[in-house]
């Protein structure tokens, strides 16, 4: 029973946490606010404000 609980804990808590830590965020890219080659291998997404 304890083993089953531990397995469930690993599956439900630790695996998603590890995934969230390692996966890259994906952003919606507005072409109006984008410059550079559309097929460029490197994309810099800048979150900023003007003040």
């Amino acid at each position: 029973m304890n083993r089953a609980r531990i397995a469930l804990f690993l599956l439900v808590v630790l695996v998603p946490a590890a995934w969230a830590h390692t996966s890259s965020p994906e952003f919606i890219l507005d072409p109006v606010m984008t410059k550079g080659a559309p097929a460029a291998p490197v994309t810099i997404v800048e979150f900023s404000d003007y003040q």
Partner: protein
Amino acid sequence: MLKEFPGKVRLVFKDFPLAAHERARPAAEAARCAGALGKFWPYHDRLFTNQPRFARDELVQYAIEVGLERASFIRCLDERRFRAAVDADAAEGRAAGVRGTPTFFINGEKLVGAHPVENFRSVINDALKARTR
């Protein structure tokens, strides 16, 4: 960076107006209006040059200076046509862990704060190497 790595880098600007910066929000919406009228980047540059002078009349003046038609810009600004779009960017940023500005993601690699150009060069070179592996 775009000039230094021609064809290899693209830059995407996302709005993240901080609550403490009360004029950042109207400036962001104004820049979106400029974008809708075909002048996002010139207007964006104008805002950074003139920060934090973002009173409504000043925002309109910058629009005229970059060649936008005054009435169309004012209509867009006063209707707050891009309020939801700015909110959406900020929500996206928060979901990705953005807490302050500027925050960069270079092929997903997070870089927080203003950094020397060497740091960007290094992260970009690493990203390019990772792509060719």
